[in-house]
């Protein structure tokens, strides 16, 4: 009875020509999202930056935030840059409260996130 989490992977180029992986999530990000969230991360190749797209996510709870922190752990190991966009102002506040903003830039939309890479 929870909304299924989906993740798709896009490869795009930043304005500077750099190749960027975008993980686009939809549905809920909660304790039942482990497979889709961490599975999507496993499929990130190369060493370039990763953007997390939350535009189509409307429910995130603390178990979901823990999964996002697990992605940041993986990124930290290899020095990969991560940024997020499409969070509502409320979830931008929540992500900042728990400290995620220290490890991933939080941007309003995709162009802003790309420009900041």
């Amino acid at each position: 009875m929870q909304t299924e989490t989906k993740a798709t992977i896009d490869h795009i180029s930043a304005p500077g020509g750099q190749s960027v992986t975008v993980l686009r999530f939809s549905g809920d990000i909660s304790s039942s999202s482990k497979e889709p969230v961490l599975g999507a991360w496993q499929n990130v190749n190369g060493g370039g930056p990763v953007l997390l797209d939350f535009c189509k996510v409307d429910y995130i709870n603390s178990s979901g935030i823990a999964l996002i922190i697990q992605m940041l752990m993986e990124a930290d190991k290899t020095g990969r840059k991560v940024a997020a966009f499409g969070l509502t102002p409320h979830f931008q506040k929540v992500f900042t409260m728990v400290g995620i903003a220290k490890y991933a830039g939080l941007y309003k939309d995709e162009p802003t996130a790309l420009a900041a890479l």
Partner: protein
Amino acid sequence: MIVTAGTTVEVRLPSRLGFEKVAMGTAASVAALMGFPSERIEDLKTAVAEACINAIEHGNHLNEQLSVGVILSATSDELEVKVIDNGSGIAKQPSKPDIDRKVHGEEDPRGMGMFLMQALVDEAEWVKDSKGKGSYVRLVIRLDKESD
């Protein structure tokens, strides 16, 4: 039908993950009726969701035969939400999550629910079961307070 006082809304949910969203919907409607601004309603929704998830997981151990109670009491200037489960309550207040330790694998990536409740509402208090009536967390948001 039991007689209740004027401005109390009670909800009973099954102990199944996902049903915290029903408590979010109910709490949001009561808060909207009271005139809370939308940012405060978002804060309350997240706090109520985390409280229900803990009641479902840690209090009732996902036993669907047990229900989680949510009692919303409105006065002219505040809304109190009690989320009640059948467990014995929290053993101790967890320490504030430390993102550096989490990212470096020195601390469980989980363990942010109680911190968020405290950060998002004006009052958060955990009360351990005394007479078999259940343990609960009591959350309060006040109408005059600005969203932090």
